[in-house]
């Protein structure tokens, strides 16, 4: 089912991002942990070719 906001031209929301461990939702928690790890890596953003596996991700809530 489509969201009421699912229409072309409408700006996307900007979310208040909680810290690591700041949500009980397991998938969101994993994404936040991964984001935190990336942002502390001190590397410039880079996009990788999608026809290959990624390196292992840190477990949810893991320290960077």
């Amino acid at each position, binding site marked *: 089912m*489509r*969201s009421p*906001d*699912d*229409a*072309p*031209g*409408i*700006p*996307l*929301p*900007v*979310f*208040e*991002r*909680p810290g690591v461990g700041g*949500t009980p*939702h*397991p*998938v*969101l928690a*994993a*994404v*936040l942990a*991964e*984001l935190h790890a*990336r*942002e502390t*890596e*001190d*590397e*410039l*953003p*880079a*996009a*990788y*070719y*999608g*026809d*290959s*596996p*990624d*390196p*292992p*991700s840190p477990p949810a809530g893991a320290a960077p």
Partner: protein
Amino acid sequence: MSSDCLRQFVLKVHSRCNLDCTYCYIYRSPDTSWRDRPHHVGEHTMRQTARRIAEHVATHRPRSVRVDLHGGEPLLTGPEPLVAYADTVRRAVPDGTDVTVTVQTNGTLLTRPALDRLADAGIRIGISLDGGTAALNARRVDHAGRPSWPAARRAARMLAARRPDAYGGLLCTVDPATDPAEVYSSLRALAPPALDFLLPHVHWGSRPPGRHRPAPTPYGDWLAEAFDLWWDDGTRGLPRVRLFTEIAALLLGGSSRTDAVGLSPIAAVVVETDGTIERLDSLKTAYPHAPATGLDVHRNSFDEALGHPRIAALRAGLGGLGEDCRACPVVRICGGGNYAHRYSRRTGHFRHPSVHCADLERIIRHAAARIGEQLSVSSRSLV
């Protein structure tokens, strides 16, 4: 912080494949340069490629680089050349930069000894599968039309049971004619640590199959349903789904690490079996020699590749997009989608929205809605 550089080296080990998948973007594309390549990479090219990677790393000092052993079907060589290539690169790269090595395979030639050999050498293995049943893999056949599924299933099961430490994950090309719930659950049953759903490599001159359907976003609808299955999956062993993770990361203000979405510069190059340096294979779908740079590891450095205009075009971010994209409120998430999907035969260039534009917007807005159920929205607009 390291300087901007290439960080992913897709090294072709074999230029042929034992399968003849109906949607293959390498062997069923306008670019047929694979016919002119040596079947397998030689030792001299391996050594020279490794020297060039090391040279690039020494200049830029990235924290890590990825080496992806690819094909065709890389296991047509057996495991030893893969291990040799990995070892050659690792020995050459200076200390201080991690080297992760993977192989992407159709799985049909992954025997138990080969698995152990690769895993013991620290090489992680990804398998391409379009689902976890025979019917879902009907398009993945060999040159005689025989299904690859039995052998591929055996490989995936063996990886999960015997060497989960080496299990890189499964890559699935989306087919909107399938049931996303069946695809997701059957792939989950193969216990991958990671999944990705790839949109087919097509462009405005070769529309995606299914576009005739009444719904305007068949791929987006499929992905939205798969997203819900993943987002709401509370069971143990939940795999990381790359496309969805990257979309969520972007929606949360981060940058992406995939060429499928986001504006991050592409950090990958391909080295063919003869040492030729090329852009991504997905560009083979556009026109003959679309991936070509005219460079090779025997005569040129990866710094020269980094500065090549054709590679710079893949790293241009917002500036490389057409006006329609730059004005769109979704652009900082979709990034214009995969570069190859923007090509138009009519204009001969890539400065168009993705042929999957509407589908990308569909899944992005859907993901935003699901995230919005969990998080507060700030007052700022993303535009």
